[in-house]
């Protein structure tokens, strides 16, 4: 009642253009706040430290951001549907040890197939997707609250990782597998390329496909989505599977970069992923957000960590600063929205 706009439908020439401008400013303004923060941070860091803008450092930041970025993109799908996926850190470790076990120098030597890295990647993706599918089934089919279902999975997947690996690292990975984490194409590290690919694909899915429309509708109002005939359960299931699959990608990048898969890898990664999503402007209440915001959020965290490293700030302080940043981003977002 109180928020209505008494605007007649514009008619006549010239309105078409002004209409498209006014409707585009809203989303842009939403993205601006956090983008400006990122740019400002970069300017400040470039001013205080000459190394910051060096090609090596920029590539370094992007590579360090890629794992959290990929996890955060998967998390964006889940959060858009009003869910949460706390299990991604454990999935990173589980996928790492499972896929790596197909790509150690010893197993590769035994089986001796040149396709071993490929099989390892397929196994990794399948593991991540399967774990996500189990979470998705619990949430979508059995209506377990997402927080509880994925909290359970956080513990279970970590346990499975330790069982599978016997608590020991899976060592000495083949060069083919390590390429995922350390290789490059035309000078650009593979993790950054994967990060870019995942971003473009996710952005396309959310903005251009029917499934994308479904995700926003289910998060915005699941009741209305159900009445309108949308397959709400299937959509809920799918976002957890996507999050699991992307956690798998991240897990393999991490194992590839480390050179061996550690069962204790990825602890608390879910928190950074959630932070990137929230800083990027996606609403925890669902239905509002975009992948580009998430990527900027992940970059902001990455740049900040890097900048504080360059300035020699202890990592203990970095955590405090990151915590402040998360809350500040949400406050900024809220004050901007209430001004509308």
């Amino acid at each position, binding site marked *: 009642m109180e928020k209505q706009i008494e605007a007649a439908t514009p008619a006549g020439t010239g309105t078409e253009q002004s209409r498209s401008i*006014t409707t585009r400013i809203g989303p842009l303004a939403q993205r601006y706040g956090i983008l400006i923060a990122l740019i400002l941070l970069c300017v400040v860091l470039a001013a205080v430290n000459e190394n910051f803008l060096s090609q090596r450092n920029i590539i370094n930041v992007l590579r360090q951001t890629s794992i959290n970025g990929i996890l955060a993109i998967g998390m964006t799908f889940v959060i858009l549907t009003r869910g949460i996926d706390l299990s991604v850190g454990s999935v990173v470790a589980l996928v790492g040890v499972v896929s790596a076990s197909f790509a150690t120098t010893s197993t590769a030597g035994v089986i001796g197939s040149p396709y071993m890295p490929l099989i390892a990647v397929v196994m990794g993706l399948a593991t991540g997707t399967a774990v996500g599918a189990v979470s998705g089934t619990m949430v979508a089919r059995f209506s377990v609250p997402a927080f509880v279902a994925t909290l359970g999975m956080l513990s279970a997947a970590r346990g499975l990782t330790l069982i599978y690996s016997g608590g020991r690292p899976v060592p000495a990975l083949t060069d083919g597998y390590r390429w995922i984490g350390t290789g490059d194409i035309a000078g650009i590290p593979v993790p950054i390329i994967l990060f870019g690919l995942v971003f473009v694909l996710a952005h396309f899915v959310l903005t251009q496909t029917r499934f994308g429309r479904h995700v926003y509708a289910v998060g915005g109002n699941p009741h209305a989505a159900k009445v309108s005939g949308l397959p709400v359960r299937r959509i809920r299931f799918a976002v957890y599977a996507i999050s699991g699959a992307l956690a798998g990608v991240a897990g393999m990048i991490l194992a590839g970069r480390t050179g061996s898969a550690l069962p204790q890898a990825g602890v608390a990664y879910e928190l950074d992923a959630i932070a990137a999503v929230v800083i990027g402007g996606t609403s925890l209440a669902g239905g509002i957000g975009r992948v580009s915001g998430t990527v900027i959020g992940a970059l902001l965290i990455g740049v900040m960590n890097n900048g504080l490293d360059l300035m020699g700030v202890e990592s203990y302080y970095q955590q405090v600063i990151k915590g402040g940043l998360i809350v500040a981003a949400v406050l900024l977002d809220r004050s901007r929205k209430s001004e509308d």
Partner: protein
Amino acid sequence: MEQPLLEATGFRKSFGGVPALRDGRFVLHPGSVHALCGGNGAGKSTFLKILMGIHHRDAGTLLRDGKPMTFESPSQALANGISIIEQELSPVPAMTVAENIYLGREPVGLFGRVRFGDLNHMAQELLDGFHFGIRADSLMMDLTVAQVQLVEIAKALSYDAEIIIMDEPTSALGEAEADQLFAAIKTLTARGKGVIYVSHRLSEIFSICDSYTVFRDGAFVETGAMDTIDKDRLIHLVVGRPLTEEFVKENEPGGEEMLSVRNLSADHGVRDVNFAVRRGEILALYGLMGSGRTEIFDRLFGLSDTAGGEIVIEGTATRIDTPNQAIAAGLAYVTEDRKHSGLVLTGDVRDNLCLATLDRVSSGQLMRVGAERDAAQRMIETLNIKTASDKLSVSNLSGGNQQKVVLGKWFLTEPRILLLDEPTRGVDVGAKREIYRVMSDFTRAGGAVIMISSETDEVLGMADRAVVMRDGRVAGELQRAELSAERLLHLAA
């Protein structure tokens, strides 16, 4: 003349340079029930929010008992004897009725211990004083929606305010509970309190208010005593142009049955329901709150846990377990609460219009944005939805236009049978008429409408036939010639 309780003159308020209220005036006398009338966007809500201290006025004076005042916050307004019953309910479900009424004002004893005995006693006395028939120690979550609304009303009255603002207080009430509310209002005015009453239901205004003030386009239009004005003139003042007829009804029921149900059962004990609706017909499902009307719609649309009985659509027995099957069978369902289950409020107008027909505006998984836009534009034009753009967030639209968006979403599915649950709730007079026009045109073009309505006038004005529900069963059926408010109530109660 006696001192007015409240006198507001020249209220002005703009939001971001857009004036929402240009000239708000209102005088409330003790013992009066004063209707504040106006369409959506007339400035009523803004005016009331200034009174409540939620917004700050840009200009104007407010006299309370003759003393100039400015309220900085709702608690200040409350301290000066102004309380409000809001449209939106805010109960704490796991607490008792008494705890809800006196939330934050509990009587406390030693060490801050809540004196529950006193609390329950006070609350029960309050509820009994208004004959609400609710136990103070029952849990909020065990109450019906209508009872929750009555508790909210009791809460507003518990402040013993001199001035009580009621903003659409009957929107969630059935006839019986509404009568309880009206009796409570009479008790209040007898005690010398003043009530500011806002409602889109004109019959209510005429039956309980003694004076009226009309706002239009953010400005005061006219004030006077209720017995000096008739319905047509009031509508004229609200809408700004004469409305000859409130209802639009040009349909003619045909012979062929479009949908019939046999021995249908649904949730909450609804069973043995039989009725049919014919081509070109508007059938009303009438009944009190909780009589099982909405449950029948949920069952017809595959949203029910219970699935007994048979549904025949255009001669074919049809199984409906999911909304998709219902949509495929040619049904469309405008639900009772558009914010809860009609609209995706985070989305824009286009998203909402295309929500049920995404498969028609996409090729495989790929959305065809042009087709989406065209479909949305078509509905905006057909239904005269007032929005600056189809990319505007649907939460910015007025109630009437939001309702048209829900209707538009369903018209895009090209339905043959429309299920409308309280289609004009919270919709202003002008938009109401447009919705009646849509119903009339739809049935004239060969569709069938089943309408749930708690407004007797609406049933009398629009329905060709009424099926009356009581306690989950069909209590009787009335042809248009037999329809009257008394007969409907007699069957329903």
